[in-house]
């Protein structure tokens, strides 16, 4: 199978360097993660593949279980341990290395002299995942079986049927699979393009509120009410940072 490389710049108009310049060193994993996932979706669609296999190993899955518990993210907690998931576009996602310890993979690569991407992400030290990772690595030192035990706990866990879990639908903007009306990638992009890079970072309820506020602000700009004030020059500066020439 020929190698196809897709870039964030081509897909979204932004490189990761440009995004970090906007958002800073915190929360940038949100952008990279969301964009990477959708880039995989788009690539899979483009190449018309039967399966989309990711390299998640046992450590990654255990980390994700812990992270979803720490965040109280029931929907993800419910599905993050599945070895095969259906994302609604007919291309199943599979994790063939789900039960393989990271240590075994790294050792294998070392002894077989395989070249692999190993550089620690320069943007990552502040990632939320890092906390789950440190916790997991410290637990592994006590007993490596803890990794498998956490995965097993995740697999055995059954979320109460009355718990509210978002169902998958399609993004009204880009038509890719999403659990929200507008997918995270589109919201993050809107934030970047409007100079509000923190727009999509955080809970979806907060994002909805910010989107609405942003809309209201734009409205008031045009109506020249509330948020707009006249400064000493010949310009009106709006609280939403849009400068409008005084007519």
């Amino acid at each position, binding site marked *: 199978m020929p190698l196809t490389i897709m870039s964030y710049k081509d897909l979204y108009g932004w490189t990761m360097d440009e995004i970090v310049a906007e958002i800073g060193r915190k929360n940038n994993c949100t952008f990279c993660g969301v964009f990477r996932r959708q880039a995989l979706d788009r690539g899979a669609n483009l190449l018309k593949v039967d399966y989309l296999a990711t390299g998640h190993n046992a450590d990654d899955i255990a980390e994700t279980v812990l992270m979803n518990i720490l965040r109280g993210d029931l929907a993800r907690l419910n599905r993050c341990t599945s070895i095969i998931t259906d994302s609604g576009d007919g291309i199943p996602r599979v994790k063939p290395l789900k039960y393989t310890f990271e240590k075994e993979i790294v050792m294998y690569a070392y002894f077989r002299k395989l070249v692999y991407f*190993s550089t*620690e992400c320069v943007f990552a030290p502040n990632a939320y995942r890092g906390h789950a990772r440190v916790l997991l690595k410290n637990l592994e030192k006590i007993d490596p079986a803890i990794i498998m035990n956490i995965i097993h706990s995740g697999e055995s866990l059954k979320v109460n049927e009355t718990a509210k879990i978002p169902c998958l639908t399609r993004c009204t903007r880009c038509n890719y699979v999403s659990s929200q009306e507008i997918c995270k990638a589109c919201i993050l992009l809107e934030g970047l393009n409007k100079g509000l890079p923190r727009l999509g970072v955080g809970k979806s309820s907060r994002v909805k509120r910010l989107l609405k506020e942003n809309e209201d602000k734009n409205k008031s700009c045009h109506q020249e009410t509330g948020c707009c004030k006249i400064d000493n020059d010949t310009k009106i500066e709006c609280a939403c940072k849009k400068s409008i020439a005084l007519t």
Partner: protein
Amino acid sequence: MDIKVQFGGGAELLFDNKKHYDISLPSKEKPWIIGDLLFWLKEHLLKERPDLFLQDNSVRPGILVLINDTDWELMDTVNYEIQLNDCIMFISTLHGG
């Protein structure tokens, strides 16, 4: 005592981006153990962020150590007595998001 020390998987970034070092450990009364070597490395070769390499008198969890291509967990980890011409390899498995 001459030994080889190697870094991989990103651990080399903490050591001036060099993957191979031939080092000569000064002689001392007690035999050199890996635990001593870790502190020697910290003093002499480690260039930045020591907390990404060391934690509680051992390597930071997530860094694999190989002694002559054998997992150090089979060799008593920090207590292994270093021999002449040993090759000690440190491979980081720590990565981001």
